[in-house]
């Protein structure tokens, strides 16, 4: 449980490296966690070679959701979009380095759902995207 608020999570929450909004961007998507109203927007620029040139997240929410978003963005910059499409739940858990119960898992996975809905060009960030 103390793990849940590991220093790295508090640090990314308080001093995120990738908070912001890219203009212009190639991909933009935003959605809420209906449980708690947490909100994440992701903007992304894609290079000619199909890799993530740059990305940012914006929004509000708990430490877990915002730190996950920051860690996620950090992890995808420079990666091929095709690889980003394959990311799932385990990727976020690896980034956080902790186990999460079902409720907090939703907080942690919001940014990945938003990211995947954006790269797939979907209208909604559904749970199936990260299973």
């Amino acid at each position: 449980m103390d793990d849940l608020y590991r220093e790295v999570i508090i640090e990314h929450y308080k001093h995120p490296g990738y908070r912001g909004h890219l203009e212009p961007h190639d991909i933009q998507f935003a959605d809420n966690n209906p449980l708690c109203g947490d909100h994440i927007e992701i903007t992304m620029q894609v290079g000619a070679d199909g890799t993530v040139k740059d990305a940012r997240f914006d929004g509000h929410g708990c430490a877990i959701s915002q730190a996950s978003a920051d860690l996620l963005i950090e992890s995808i910059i420079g990666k091929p979009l095709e690889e980003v499409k394959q990311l799932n739940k385990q990727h976020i858990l690896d980034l956080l380095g902790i186990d999460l119960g079902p409720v907090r898992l939703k907080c942690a996975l919001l940014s990945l759902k938003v990211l995947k809905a954006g790269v797939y060009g979907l209208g909604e960030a559904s749970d199936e995207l990260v299973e």
Partner: protein
Amino acid sequence: MTLNVQQIRSDFPILQRETSKGIRLVYLDSTATSQKPLPVIEAMNAYYRRSNANIHRGVHTLAEEATALYEEAREKIARFINAPSARQVIYTRNTTESINLVAYAWARANLKAGDLVVLTEMEHHSNLVPWQMLQAERGIELDFIPVTEAGLLDLDAYQALLARTPKLVAFTHMSNVLGTINPAAEIIRLAHEAGAVTLVDAAQSVPHLKVDVQALDADFLAFSAHKMCGPTGIGALYGKADLLEAMPPFLGGGDMIKEVKLRSFRPNSLPHKFEAGTPAIAEAVGFGAAVDYLSSVGMDAIASHEHEITAYALERLEEIPGVKVFGPEAQYKGGVAAFTLDGIHPHDVAQILDKDGIAVRAGHHCAQPLHEKFGIPATSRASFYLYNTKDEVDLLVDGIYKVKKMFG
């Protein structure tokens, strides 16, 4: 009037448990659902061990007993809210279903395009969405009594809404977020003067205050067992007899009929007209045991105990730097303290408190528009019931200081 909290606590087995080794449960989430005392648990247990059968129409001993228990519970619930007759108490699944029953059976028979329904800005989603659905289907109009900065209903604005002759005024008796206890009798009197029917969402009031449907002159009043020491899966709708009699049925099926032919049916009389299918029988028995339990403690004693705890909690919470408590001052309020902590998300607050066994709720508490009104996505909410103590408030306050330290 005072109540013996230690004795009451010993009636609730769950309050004796630990959430992890050496950490005792501090349950501050009764607004979401209350805990259950032994007499309720035992009544349901005894029903399944001894009397279980389907109700009505059975002639064997168990069916007779089950039917009697189910209907006795209805009598108890009717007395508890001072309904003139038990036939005016309809069993539903919960407050939400009670409100939906009114929206389907009464409103669809009585409202047409352009008719105005007045709600308030502090409603739970359960008293918003059914009316939004009806708006989409029927083209009724919705308008809302505003909530003031102080967390009270703006009754001047209400008067202005009434000048537009609404057909229905549907409002919460007590806010599940602000804790505001609304002046229900006054709201109903004014609605009646304007010719409107009234629906009271009493999910938070019936468990905590003496509610008398005749003194209020309520047309419809909805509440749930699980927030008042009873089981989940059962609630009630009280209605005035003439309104209920005139309404078409809600769900169709067994038990709600008097006679069925291949191409037609005649509905049953009250209250069965609105109770299709095998109901939650054990839960009804538990509901009856719950009102017996609350009556034995005394609703006035419960209300004054909660008031004392809430006043103490507000005082202690407000002395913590960075804490903002929402809703009116203690005198207008039931046992709810929804708060924010500067720079720390309510989910994080709730999670860290949980480590010390303290159960509070975090989120928008099914009142998203109200949170938007106050410009916040979510709050942490501590709520109090007959079994809570000032010591538990102190533990909550210590816990909040811990959260602050962790986020430094």
